[in-house]
Protein backbone atom coordinates (compact mmCIF):
# COMPACT_ATOMS: atom_id res chain seq x y z
CA UNK A 1 0.00 0.00 0.00
CA UNK A 2 1.41 3.37 -0.89
CA UNK A 3 1.72 5.98 1.80
CA UNK A 4 -0.81 8.80 1.64
CA UNK A 5 0.13 12.16 3.09
CA UNK A 6 -2.83 14.48 3.58
CA UNK A 7 -2.33 18.23 3.76
CA UNK A 8 -5.33 20.22 4.94
CA UNK A 9 -5.53 23.55 3.14
CA UNK A 10 -6.45 26.16 5.73
CA UNK A 11 -8.54 29.02 4.42
CA UNK A 12 -11.04 31.68 5.39
CA UNK A 13 -13.93 31.71 2.94
CA UNK A 14 -11.78 30.62 0.05
CA UNK A 15 -8.77 32.78 0.91
CA UNK A 16 -5.72 30.84 2.08
CA UNK A 17 -3.15 32.53 4.33
CA UNK A 18 0.48 32.19 3.23
CA UNK A 19 1.07 29.61 5.94
CA UNK A 20 -1.51 27.30 4.32
CA UNK A 21 0.98 26.14 1.68
CA UNK A 22 3.97 25.60 3.96
CA UNK A 23 3.05 22.03 5.03
CA UNK A 24 3.25 20.99 1.37
CA UNK A 25 7.02 21.24 1.64
CA UNK A 26 7.10 18.94 4.67
CA UNK A 27 4.58 16.64 2.95
CA UNK A 28 6.77 16.34 -0.14
CA UNK A 29 9.80 15.41 1.97
CA UNK A 30 7.85 12.70 3.77
CA UNK A 31 6.17 11.46 0.59
CA UNK A 32 9.55 11.10 -1.13
CA UNK A 33 10.95 9.12 1.79
CA UNK A 34 7.98 6.75 1.72
CA UNK A 35 7.41 6.80 -2.05
CA UNK A 36 3.89 8.02 -1.32
CA UNK A 37 1.48 10.61 -2.64
CA UNK A 38 0.57 14.08 -1.38
CA UNK A 39 -3.17 14.65 -1.13
CA UNK A 40 -4.56 18.14 -0.60
CA UNK A 41 -7.73 18.09 1.49
CA UNK A 42 -9.93 21.18 1.30
CA UNK A 43 -13.02 21.47 3.48
CA UNK A 44 -15.48 24.26 2.71
CA UNK A 45 -17.54 25.72 -0.09
CA UNK A 46 -16.29 27.64 -3.12
CA UNK A 47 -12.93 25.94 -3.03
CA UNK A 48 -12.35 25.42 -6.77
CA UNK A 49 -9.60 28.03 -6.97
CA UNK A 50 -7.88 26.56 -3.92
CA UNK A 51 -7.99 23.13 -5.53
CA UNK A 52 -6.19 24.50 -8.59
CA UNK A 53 -3.62 26.22 -6.45
CA UNK A 54 -3.04 23.08 -4.37
CA UNK A 55 -2.27 21.20 -7.58
CA UNK A 56 0.11 23.93 -8.68
CA UNK A 57 1.82 23.81 -5.26
CA UNK A 58 2.52 20.11 -5.51
CA UNK A 59 -0.55 18.03 -4.61
CA UNK A 60 -0.76 14.72 -6.50
CA UNK A 61 -4.47 14.55 -5.81
CA UNK A 62 -7.02 16.97 -4.40
CA UNK A 63 -10.10 16.12 -2.33
CA UNK A 64 -12.70 18.81 -1.78
CA UNK A 65 -14.97 18.20 1.19
CA UNK A 66 -18.36 19.61 0.38
CA UNK A 67 -21.40 20.00 2.59
CA UNK A 68 -23.65 22.97 3.43
CA UNK A 69 -22.52 22.71 7.08
CA UNK A 70 -18.98 23.51 5.91
CA UNK A 71 -19.87 26.95 4.55
CA UNK A 72 -18.45 28.52 7.72
CA UNK A 73 -15.54 27.21 9.72
CA UNK A 74 -16.35 25.42 12.98
CA UNK A 75 -14.00 22.96 14.63
CA UNK A 76 -16.69 20.32 15.07
CA UNK A 77 -17.97 20.20 11.50
CA UNK A 78 -14.59 20.63 9.81
CA UNK A 79 -12.96 18.16 12.19
CA UNK A 80 -15.69 15.57 11.78
CA UNK A 81 -15.57 15.86 7.99
CA UNK A 82 -11.82 15.18 8.07
CA UNK A 83 -12.34 12.22 10.43
CA UNK A 84 -14.87 10.67 8.03
CA UNK A 85 -12.53 11.12 5.10
CA UNK A 86 -9.76 9.49 7.13
CA UNK A 87 -11.98 6.51 7.88
CA UNK A 88 -12.41 6.03 4.13
CA UNK A 89 -8.90 6.84 2.90
CA UNK A 90 -6.71 5.68 5.78
CA UNK A 91 -4.07 8.39 5.55
CA UNK A 92 -0.55 7.63 6.76
CA UNK A 93 0.06 11.17 7.98
CA UNK A 94 -1.99 14.34 8.26
CA UNK A 95 -0.35 17.75 8.05
CA UNK A 96 -1.82 21.12 9.04
CA UNK A 97 -0.29 24.57 9.31
CA UNK A 98 -0.16 25.76 12.94
CA UNK A 99 -2.78 28.44 12.40
CA UNK A 100 -5.72 28.96 14.77
CA UNK A 101 -7.97 26.71 12.70
CA UNK A 102 -5.15 24.28 11.93
CA UNK A 103 -4.53 23.51 15.59
CA UNK A 104 -8.21 23.09 16.36
CA UNK A 105 -8.82 20.77 13.42
CA UNK A 106 -5.70 18.74 14.23
CA UNK A 107 -6.85 18.22 17.83
CA UNK A 108 -10.37 17.31 16.76
CA UNK A 109 -9.26 14.87 14.08
CA UNK A 110 -6.71 13.21 16.37
CA UNK A 111 -9.29 12.80 19.14
CA UNK A 112 -11.86 11.42 16.70
CA UNK A 113 -9.46 8.90 15.15
CA UNK A 114 -7.33 8.17 18.21
CA UNK A 115 -4.11 9.38 16.59
CA UNK A 116 -0.99 10.84 18.12
CA UNK A 117 -0.53 14.50 17.32
CA UNK A 118 2.70 16.50 17.19
CA UNK A 119 1.91 20.22 17.14
CA UNK A 120 4.00 23.18 15.94
CA UNK A 121 7.01 21.27 14.64
CA UNK A 122 9.86 22.81 12.66
CA UNK A 123 11.42 19.55 11.57
CA UNK A 124 9.71 16.27 10.75
CA UNK A 125 10.83 12.86 9.55
CA UNK A 126 9.19 9.48 9.10
CA UNK A 127 10.98 6.19 9.64
CA UNK A 128 10.18 2.66 10.80
CA UNK A 129 6.49 3.36 11.20
CA UNK A 130 7.19 6.32 13.47
CA UNK A 131 7.04 10.03 12.91
CA UNK A 132 9.70 12.00 14.67
CA UNK A 133 9.73 15.77 14.97
CA UNK A 134 11.37 18.63 16.81
CA UNK A 135 9.34 21.43 18.36
CA UNK A 136 9.90 24.33 20.70
CA UNK A 137 8.44 24.09 24.22
CA UNK A 138 8.51 26.56 27.12
CA UNK A 139 8.16 29.40 24.62
CA UNK A 140 11.19 28.17 22.71
CA UNK A 141 13.52 28.22 25.72
CA UNK A 142 13.85 24.46 25.20
CA UNK A 143 13.37 22.15 22.23
CA UNK A 144 11.86 18.72 22.42
CA UNK A 145 12.16 15.71 20.16
CA UNK A 146 8.72 14.12 19.95
CA UNK A 147 7.64 10.85 18.42
CA UNK A 148 4.46 8.95 17.76
CA UNK A 149 3.52 5.93 15.71
CA UNK A 150 1.90 6.20 12.29
CA UNK A 151 -0.78 7.03 11.37
CA UNK A 152 -0.44 10.44 13.01
CA UNK A 153 -1.20 14.15 12.85
CA UNK A 154 1.43 16.89 12.64
CA UNK A 155 1.09 20.68 12.51
CA UNK A 156 3.99 22.63 11.00
CA UNK A 157 5.27 25.78 12.65
CA UNK A 158 4.45 28.90 10.67
CA UNK A 159 7.41 30.12 8.60
CA UNK A 160 9.52 27.07 9.51
CA UNK A 161 9.00 25.56 6.05
CA UNK A 162 9.05 27.56 2.83
CA UNK A 163 5.85 27.25 0.85
CA UNK A 164 6.53 25.64 -2.54
CA UNK A 165 6.11 28.11 -5.41
CA UNK A 166 3.14 27.35 -7.66
CA UNK A 167 4.18 25.62 -10.85
CA UNK A 168 2.27 27.00 -13.83
CA UNK A 169 0.27 24.34 -15.63
CA UNK A 170 0.77 21.65 -12.98
CA UNK A 171 -2.51 19.79 -12.56
CA UNK A 172 -3.91 17.06 -10.36
CA UNK A 173 -7.14 15.07 -10.31
CA UNK A 174 -9.79 16.72 -8.13
CA UNK A 175 -12.35 14.59 -6.29
CA UNK A 176 -15.15 15.57 -3.97
CA UNK A 177 -16.16 13.87 -0.76
CA UNK A 178 -19.48 14.56 0.92
CA UNK A 179 -19.36 13.90 4.65
CA UNK A 180 -22.42 12.91 6.58
CA UNK A 181 -22.83 15.77 9.05
CA UNK A 182 -25.56 16.40 11.57
CA UNK A 183 -27.08 19.83 12.12
CA UNK A 184 -24.23 21.88 13.69
CA UNK A 185 -24.71 22.85 17.35
CA UNK A 186 -23.51 26.36 16.60
CA UNK A 187 -24.75 28.85 14.00
CA UNK A 188 -22.47 31.47 12.54
CA UNK A 189 -24.23 34.83 12.77
CA UNK A 190 -21.62 36.82 10.95
CA UNK A 191 -18.14 38.27 10.94
CA UNK A 192 -16.52 41.42 12.16
CA UNK A 193 -13.69 42.07 9.78
CA UNK A 194 -11.01 44.29 11.22
CA UNK A 195 -9.43 46.85 9.02
CA UNK A 196 -5.85 45.98 8.49
CA UNK A 197 -3.36 47.28 6.06
CA UNK A 198 -0.19 45.50 5.19
CA UNK A 199 0.66 41.93 6.11
CA UNK A 200 -0.49 39.99 9.16
CA UNK A 201 1.97 39.95 12.07
CA UNK A 202 2.44 36.20 12.01
CA UNK A 203 3.19 36.18 8.29
CA UNK A 204 5.08 39.43 7.85
CA UNK A 205 8.61 39.42 6.43
CA UNK A 206 9.32 42.66 8.26
CA UNK A 207 7.93 43.86 11.61
CA UNK A 208 8.26 47.33 13.10
CA UNK A 209 7.50 47.11 16.79
CA UNK A 210 7.13 49.64 19.59
CA UNK A 211 7.25 49.49 23.37
CA UNK A 212 6.72 51.71 26.34
CA UNK A 213 9.49 53.96 25.06
CA UNK A 214 7.13 55.21 22.35
CA UNK A 215 5.37 57.33 25.00
CA UNK A 216 8.62 59.00 25.97
CA UNK A 217 9.15 61.82 23.47
CA UNK A 218 11.85 64.39 24.10
CA UNK A 219 9.45 67.06 22.85
CA UNK A 220 5.67 66.86 23.15
CA UNK A 221 4.29 66.44 19.62
CA UNK A 222 1.95 69.24 18.50
CA UNK A 223 -1.42 67.44 18.72
CA UNK A 224 -0.71 66.62 22.38
CA UNK A 225 0.55 70.02 23.50
CA UNK A 226 -2.88 71.13 24.63
CA UNK A 227 -3.60 68.00 26.66
CA UNK A 228 -3.08 68.91 30.30
CA UNK A 229 -3.86 65.68 32.15
CA UNK A 230 -0.48 63.88 32.33
CA UNK A 231 -1.95 60.40 31.78
CA UNK A 232 -3.99 61.63 28.82
CA UNK A 233 -0.96 63.37 27.44
CA UNK A 234 1.16 60.24 27.72
CA UNK A 235 -1.50 58.32 25.82
CA UNK A 236 -1.69 61.03 23.18
CA UNK A 237 2.09 61.00 22.72
CA UNK A 238 2.17 57.22 22.50
CA UNK A 239 -0.58 57.18 19.88
CA UNK A 240 1.29 59.79 17.83
CA UNK A 241 4.39 57.65 18.20
CA UNK A 242 2.65 54.53 16.97
CA UNK A 243 1.26 56.56 14.07
CA UNK A 244 4.83 57.42 13.16
CA UNK A 245 5.92 53.77 13.48
CA UNK A 246 2.89 52.79 11.42
CA UNK A 247 4.05 55.09 8.66
CA UNK A 248 7.49 53.50 8.77
CA UNK A 249 5.89 50.05 8.68
CA UNK A 250 3.86 51.04 5.62
CA UNK A 251 7.00 52.24 3.86
CA UNK A 252 8.67 48.90 4.59
CA UNK A 253 5.62 46.80 3.70
CA UNK A 254 5.85 45.64 7.30
CA UNK A 255 3.41 44.70 10.04
CA UNK A 256 3.19 46.78 13.19
CA UNK A 257 3.93 45.05 16.51
CA UNK A 258 4.07 46.13 20.15
CA UNK A 259 5.21 45.02 23.59
CA UNK A 260 2.73 44.02 26.24
CA UNK A 261 3.53 47.15 28.23
CA UNK A 262 2.48 49.26 25.22
CA UNK A 263 -0.68 47.24 24.71
CA UNK A 264 -1.65 47.19 28.39
CA UNK A 265 -1.20 50.96 28.59
CA UNK A 266 -3.64 51.33 25.71
CA UNK A 267 -1.16 52.79 23.22
CA UNK A 268 -2.31 50.29 20.59
CA UNK A 269 -4.75 47.37 20.41
CA UNK A 270 -4.12 43.88 21.81
CA UNK A 271 -3.88 42.17 18.46
CA UNK A 272 -0.50 43.88 17.96
CA UNK A 273 1.13 42.26 20.99
CA UNK A 274 4.22 40.19 20.30
CA UNK A 275 5.47 37.74 22.90
CA UNK A 276 4.72 34.76 25.04
CA UNK A 277 1.16 35.91 25.74
CA UNK A 278 0.79 37.62 22.38
CA UNK A 279 1.77 36.53 18.90
CA UNK A 280 4.83 34.47 18.18
CA UNK A 281 6.57 35.85 15.11
CA UNK A 282 9.59 34.96 13.08
CA UNK A 283 10.16 37.61 10.40
CA UNK A 284 13.32 38.23 8.38
CA UNK A 285 13.63 41.64 10.01
CA UNK A 286 12.32 42.80 13.40
CA UNK A 287 12.91 46.43 14.37
CA UNK A 288 12.26 47.07 18.07
CA UNK A 289 11.74 50.71 19.06
CA UNK A 290 11.73 51.50 22.79
CA UNK A 291 11.37 47.86 23.84
CA UNK A 292 13.57 46.70 26.71
CA UNK A 293 13.50 43.04 25.66
CA UNK A 294 11.90 41.29 28.63
CA UNK A 295 12.11 37.51 28.53
CA UNK A 296 8.39 37.25 27.68
CA UNK A 297 8.82 39.62 24.75
CA UNK A 298 11.87 37.74 23.51
CA UNK A 299 9.89 34.50 23.63
CA UNK A 300 7.74 35.85 20.83
CA UNK A 301 10.39 37.26 18.48
CA UNK A 302 13.74 35.68 19.30
CA UNK A 303 13.79 33.57 16.15
CA UNK A 304 13.59 36.59 13.84
CA UNK A 305 16.43 36.45 11.32
CA UNK A 306 17.76 39.99 11.87
CA UNK A 307 16.83 41.99 14.94
CA UNK A 308 17.47 45.73 15.07
CA UNK A 309 17.02 47.48 18.41
CA UNK A 310 16.65 51.21 18.98
CA UNK A 311 16.82 52.13 22.64
CA UNK A 312 18.14 55.04 24.69
CA UNK A 313 19.53 52.63 27.29
CA UNK A 314 22.74 50.92 26.14
CA UNK A 315 22.18 48.26 28.83
CA UNK A 316 18.73 47.21 27.57
CA UNK A 317 18.58 43.39 27.31
CA UNK A 318 17.19 43.61 23.77
CA UNK A 319 20.72 44.43 22.56
CA UNK A 320 21.85 40.95 23.64
CA UNK A 321 19.79 39.36 20.88
CA UNK A 322 20.00 42.20 18.35
CA UNK A 323 22.22 42.02 15.27
CA UNK A 324 22.27 45.81 14.97
CA UNK A 325 21.85 48.25 17.81
CA UNK A 326 21.27 51.96 17.88
CA UNK A 327 21.61 53.71 21.21
CA UNK A 328 19.36 56.65 20.56
CA UNK A 329 15.96 58.21 20.71
CA UNK A 330 13.32 56.46 18.62
CA UNK A 331 11.64 59.81 18.00
CA UNK A 332 14.74 60.83 16.03
CA UNK A 333 15.74 57.49 14.52
CA UNK A 334 12.36 56.37 13.19
CA UNK A 335 11.68 59.54 11.13
CA UNK A 336 15.27 59.57 9.88
CA UNK A 337 14.92 55.97 8.75
CA UNK A 338 11.67 56.75 6.93
CA UNK A 339 13.28 59.72 5.20
CA UNK A 340 16.27 57.63 4.18
CA UNK A 341 14.04 54.94 2.66
CA UNK A 342 12.15 57.60 0.71
CA UNK A 343 15.35 59.27 -0.43
CA UNK A 344 16.62 56.01 -1.87
CA UNK A 345 13.23 55.12 -3.35
CA UNK A 346 13.06 52.06 -1.14
CA UNK A 347 9.79 53.12 0.45
CA UNK A 348 6.77 51.13 -0.66
CA UNK A 349 4.40 53.89 0.46
Amino acid at each position, binding site marked *: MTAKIAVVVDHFQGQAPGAAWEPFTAARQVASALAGEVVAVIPGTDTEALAQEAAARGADRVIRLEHPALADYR*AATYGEALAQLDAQEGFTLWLFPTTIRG*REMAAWLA*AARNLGVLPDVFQVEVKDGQVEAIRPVY*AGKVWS*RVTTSLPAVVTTRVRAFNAPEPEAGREAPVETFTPDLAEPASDVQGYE*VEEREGPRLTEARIIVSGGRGVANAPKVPDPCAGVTDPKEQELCIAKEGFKMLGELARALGAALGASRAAVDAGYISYDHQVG*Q*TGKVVSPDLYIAFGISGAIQHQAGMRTSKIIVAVNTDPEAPIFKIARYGIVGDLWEIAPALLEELRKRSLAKA
Partner: protein
Amino acid sequence: MNILVGVKVVPDTAAQVRVEDGRVTWGDAPLVLNPWDEFAVEAALQAKEKFGGRVQVLSVGDESALEALRKALAMGCQEAIRIHDPALNNPDALATARVLAAAVQKLQPDLVIFGRQAIDGDTALTPAAVARFLGWPFVGLVTAFGDFDQASGTLTVTRNLEEAKQVLRVRLPAVFTIAKEFAEPRYPTFLGIRKANRAKIPVWSLADLGIQAPEARVQWPEVMQPPKREVQCEFITGETPQEIAAKLVDKLIEEKVL
Protein backbone atom coordinates in the same frame (compact mmCIF):
# COMPACT_ATOMS: atom_id res chain seq x y z
CA MET B 1 -25.37 28.23 34.46
CA ASN B 2 -22.77 25.94 36.02
CA ILE B 3 -19.29 26.46 34.72
CA LEU B 4 -16.20 24.33 34.96
CA VAL B 5 -12.72 25.81 34.34
CA GLY B 6 -9.73 23.63 33.59
CA VAL B 7 -6.38 24.99 34.74
CA LYS B 8 -2.76 23.94 34.80
CA VAL B 9 0.25 24.91 36.88
CA VAL B 10 3.36 26.01 34.95
CA PRO B 11 6.74 27.62 35.67
CA ASP B 12 6.52 31.40 35.79
CA THR B 13 7.02 33.19 32.46
CA ALA B 14 10.18 34.84 33.81
CA ALA B 15 11.79 31.46 34.64
CA GLN B 16 15.12 30.64 33.05
CA VAL B 17 14.05 27.28 31.69
CA ARG B 18 16.91 25.10 30.44
CA VAL B 19 18.06 21.54 29.99
CA GLU B 20 20.27 19.93 32.64
CA ASP B 21 21.30 16.28 32.57
CA GLY B 22 18.81 15.70 29.81
CA ARG B 23 15.91 17.12 31.80
CA VAL B 24 14.04 20.41 31.84
CA THR B 25 14.68 22.57 34.90
CA TRP B 26 13.60 26.07 35.91
CA GLY B 27 15.72 26.41 39.03
CA ASP B 28 13.81 27.87 41.93
CA ALA B 29 11.42 29.86 39.76
CA PRO B 30 7.89 29.66 41.18
CA LEU B 31 5.10 27.58 39.72
CA VAL B 32 2.04 29.64 38.88
CA LEU B 33 -1.41 29.42 37.36
CA ASN B 34 -0.88 29.23 33.59
CA PRO B 35 -1.23 32.87 32.41
CA TRP B 36 -3.74 31.96 29.68
CA ASP B 37 -5.86 30.19 32.29
CA GLU B 38 -6.23 33.44 34.23
CA PHE B 39 -8.30 34.67 31.30
CA ALA B 40 -10.34 31.46 31.42
CA VAL B 41 -11.04 31.94 35.13
CA GLU B 42 -11.99 35.58 34.51
CA ALA B 43 -14.41 34.57 31.75
CA ALA B 44 -15.96 31.87 33.95
CA LEU B 45 -16.49 34.34 36.78
CA GLN B 46 -18.04 36.85 34.39
CA ALA B 47 -20.34 34.18 32.97
CA LYS B 48 -21.47 33.38 36.49
CA GLU B 49 -22.00 37.05 37.29
CA LYS B 50 -23.98 37.52 34.09
CA PHE B 51 -26.01 34.33 33.93
CA GLY B 52 -25.97 32.98 37.50
CA GLY B 53 -24.81 29.55 38.68
CA ARG B 54 -21.42 28.61 40.08
CA VAL B 55 -17.83 28.07 39.00
CA GLN B 56 -15.82 24.95 39.74
CA VAL B 57 -12.14 24.71 38.89
CA LEU B 58 -10.36 21.51 37.98
CA SER B 59 -6.78 20.48 37.44
CA VAL B 60 -5.18 17.19 36.52
CA GLY B 61 -1.84 17.04 38.25
CA ASP B 62 0.24 16.30 41.33
CA GLU B 63 0.34 18.47 44.45
CA SER B 64 1.98 21.33 42.61
CA ALA B 65 -1.38 21.85 40.87
CA LEU B 66 -2.71 23.18 44.18
CA GLU B 67 -0.92 26.45 43.46
CA ALA B 68 -3.05 26.98 40.35
CA LEU B 69 -6.25 25.81 42.01
CA ARG B 70 -5.78 28.10 45.02
CA LYS B 71 -5.13 31.10 42.80
CA ALA B 72 -8.35 30.36 40.91
CA LEU B 73 -10.24 30.04 44.19
CA ALA B 74 -8.73 33.30 45.41
CA MET B 75 -9.97 34.98 42.23
CA GLY B 76 -13.48 33.84 43.07
CA CYS B 77 -14.16 30.25 41.95
CA GLN B 78 -16.39 28.42 44.43
CA GLU B 79 -14.95 24.95 44.45
CA ALA B 80 -11.78 23.18 43.34
CA ILE B 81 -11.08 19.57 42.44
CA ARG B 82 -7.76 17.93 41.71
CA ILE B 83 -7.41 14.72 39.75
CA HIS B 84 -4.40 12.64 40.44
CA ASP B 85 -3.59 8.99 39.97
CA PRO B 86 -0.24 7.18 39.98
CA ALA B 87 -1.43 5.31 36.88
CA LEU B 88 -1.38 8.59 34.97
CA ASN B 89 2.22 9.19 34.10
CA ASN B 90 3.39 11.43 31.30
CA PRO B 91 -0.05 11.82 29.78
CA ASP B 92 0.01 13.56 26.40
CA ALA B 93 -2.53 16.27 25.59
CA LEU B 94 -5.07 13.76 24.32
CA ALA B 95 -4.72 11.51 27.36
CA THR B 96 -5.24 14.51 29.63
CA ALA B 97 -8.24 15.44 27.52
CA ARG B 98 -9.76 11.99 28.09
CA VAL B 99 -9.41 12.38 31.83
CA LEU B 100 -10.87 15.89 31.71
CA ALA B 101 -13.78 14.67 29.57
CA ALA B 102 -14.56 11.96 32.12
CA ALA B 103 -14.53 14.56 34.91
CA VAL B 104 -16.86 16.79 32.88
CA GLN B 105 -19.26 13.89 32.48
CA LYS B 106 -19.26 13.39 36.22
CA LEU B 107 -19.73 17.08 37.05
CA GLN B 108 -22.25 17.85 34.29
CA PRO B 109 -21.54 21.59 33.88
CA ASP B 110 -23.30 23.70 31.23
CA LEU B 111 -20.09 25.24 30.06
CA VAL B 112 -16.42 24.20 30.16
CA ILE B 113 -13.78 26.89 29.82
CA PHE B 114 -10.06 26.37 29.21
CA GLY B 115 -7.05 28.55 28.60
CA ARG B 116 -5.72 29.04 25.13
CA GLN B 117 -2.51 27.09 25.70
CA ALA B 118 -0.36 25.81 28.55
CA ILE B 119 2.95 27.68 28.41
CA ASP B 120 5.06 24.65 29.31
CA GLY B 121 4.19 22.16 26.59
CA ASP B 122 2.74 24.86 24.31
CA THR B 123 0.47 22.32 22.62
CA ALA B 124 -2.95 24.01 22.64
CA LEU B 125 -4.64 20.72 21.82
CA THR B 126 -6.39 19.72 25.03
CA PRO B 127 -9.58 21.84 24.84
CA ALA B 128 -10.74 20.85 21.35
CA ALA B 129 -9.97 17.21 22.13
CA VAL B 130 -12.11 17.40 25.29
CA ALA B 131 -14.96 18.77 23.19
CA ARG B 132 -14.63 15.91 20.71
CA PHE B 133 -14.59 13.27 23.45
CA LEU B 134 -17.76 14.83 24.90
CA GLY B 135 -19.41 15.38 21.53
CA TRP B 136 -19.91 19.05 22.44
CA PRO B 137 -19.36 22.10 20.25
CA PHE B 138 -16.01 23.85 20.61
CA VAL B 139 -15.30 27.55 20.22
CA GLY B 140 -11.69 28.69 20.57
CA LEU B 141 -10.36 32.14 21.47
CA VAL B 142 -13.61 33.66 22.63
CA THR B 143 -13.33 37.44 23.01
CA ALA B 144 -16.83 38.25 24.34
CA PHE B 145 -20.05 36.70 25.58
CA GLY B 146 -23.35 38.01 24.21
CA ASP B 147 -26.84 37.04 25.29
CA PHE B 148 -27.93 33.70 26.66
CA ASP B 149 -31.26 32.58 25.26
CA GLN B 150 -32.95 30.41 27.86
CA ALA B 151 -35.57 28.99 25.51
CA SER B 152 -33.11 27.57 22.98
CA GLY B 153 -30.25 27.10 25.48
CA THR B 154 -27.92 29.05 23.20
CA LEU B 155 -25.21 31.54 24.08
CA THR B 156 -23.98 34.12 21.59
CA VAL B 157 -20.19 34.48 21.56
CA THR B 158 -17.56 36.28 19.51
CA ARG B 159 -14.28 34.57 18.73
CA ASN B 160 -10.98 35.40 17.06
CA LEU B 161 -9.90 33.96 13.76
CA GLU B 162 -6.82 35.31 12.04
CA GLU B 163 -8.85 37.16 9.42
CA ALA B 164 -11.88 38.31 11.38
CA LYS B 165 -13.95 37.89 14.47
CA GLN B 166 -16.65 35.25 14.08
CA VAL B 167 -19.97 35.66 15.88
CA LEU B 168 -21.72 32.40 16.74
CA ARG B 169 -24.78 31.22 18.55
CA VAL B 170 -23.74 28.08 20.40
CA ARG B 171 -25.99 25.47 21.90
CA LEU B 172 -24.83 24.61 25.43
CA PRO B 173 -23.21 22.56 26.83
CA ALA B 174 -20.06 23.63 25.02
CA VAL B 175 -16.30 23.97 25.42
CA PHE B 176 -14.54 27.33 25.00
CA THR B 177 -11.06 28.76 25.21
CA ILE B 178 -10.57 32.45 25.98
CA ALA B 179 -8.55 35.11 24.17
CA LYS B 180 -6.65 37.87 25.86
CA GLU B 181 -9.04 40.57 24.62
CA PHE B 182 -11.83 39.05 26.70
CA ALA B 183 -10.91 41.06 29.80
CA GLU B 184 -8.00 41.70 32.12
CA PRO B 185 -8.04 38.93 34.78
CA ARG B 186 -9.06 40.22 38.21
CA TYR B 187 -6.70 40.18 41.17
CA PRO B 188 -7.46 37.88 44.08
CA THR B 189 -9.04 39.73 46.98
CA PHE B 190 -7.74 39.49 50.53
CA LEU B 191 -10.87 37.61 51.50
CA GLY B 192 -10.53 35.36 48.50
CA ILE B 193 -6.98 34.43 49.43
CA ARG B 194 -8.06 33.56 52.95
CA LYS B 195 -10.87 31.39 51.66
CA ALA B 196 -8.59 29.71 49.15
CA ASN B 197 -6.02 28.84 51.81
CA ARG B 198 -8.66 27.23 53.95
CA ALA B 199 -10.46 25.40 51.17
CA LYS B 200 -10.46 21.61 51.23
CA ILE B 201 -9.61 20.40 47.77
CA PRO B 202 -10.69 16.83 47.10
CA VAL B 203 -8.49 14.52 45.05
CA TRP B 204 -10.17 12.21 42.60
CA SER B 205 -8.55 9.09 41.23
CA LEU B 206 -9.25 7.54 37.85
CA ALA B 207 -11.42 4.98 39.64
CA ASP B 208 -13.54 7.88 40.93
CA LEU B 209 -14.05 8.85 37.30
CA GLY B 210 -14.71 5.27 36.29
CA ILE B 211 -11.92 5.16 33.69
CA GLN B 212 -8.64 3.37 33.08
CA ALA B 213 -5.45 5.33 32.48
CA PRO B 214 -5.62 6.46 28.85
CA GLU B 215 -2.67 5.43 26.73
CA ALA B 216 -0.35 8.26 25.69
CA ARG B 217 0.36 8.17 21.96
CA VAL B 218 3.13 10.75 22.01
CA GLN B 219 6.58 10.31 23.55
CA TRP B 220 9.23 12.96 24.08
CA PRO B 221 12.46 10.99 24.25
CA GLU B 222 14.77 13.98 24.32
CA VAL B 223 14.80 17.61 25.33
CA MET B 224 17.61 19.83 24.18
CA GLN B 225 19.01 23.26 24.61
CA PRO B 226 18.45 25.23 21.41
CA PRO B 227 21.72 26.21 19.75
CA LYS B 228 22.91 29.52 21.14
CA ARG B 229 22.21 32.35 18.75
CA GLU B 230 25.63 33.67 18.01
CA VAL B 231 24.72 37.30 17.65
CA GLN B 232 27.25 39.95 18.22
CA CYS B 233 25.42 43.24 18.35
CA GLU B 234 26.98 45.76 16.04
CA PHE B 235 26.26 49.24 17.31
CA ILE B 236 25.65 51.80 14.62
CA THR B 237 26.80 55.27 15.49
CA GLY B 238 26.95 58.58 13.69
CA GLU B 239 26.90 62.34 14.09
CA THR B 240 23.24 62.71 13.18
CA PRO B 241 20.15 60.48 13.06
CA GLN B 242 20.34 60.82 9.26
CA GLU B 243 23.82 59.38 9.18
CA ILE B 244 22.82 56.51 11.48
CA ALA B 245 19.73 55.78 9.38
CA ALA B 246 21.80 55.73 6.19
CA LYS B 247 24.28 53.28 7.71
CA LEU B 248 21.50 51.05 8.95
CA VAL B 249 19.85 50.94 5.53
CA ASP B 250 23.20 49.94 3.99
CA LYS B 251 23.53 47.10 6.50
CA LEU B 252 19.99 45.87 5.91
CA ILE B 253 20.52 45.85 2.16
CA GLU B 254 23.75 43.91 2.69
CA GLU B 255 21.82 41.40 4.84
CA LYS B 256 19.25 41.11 2.01
CA VAL B 257 16.33 41.87 4.31
CA LEU B 258 15.38 45.13 2.58
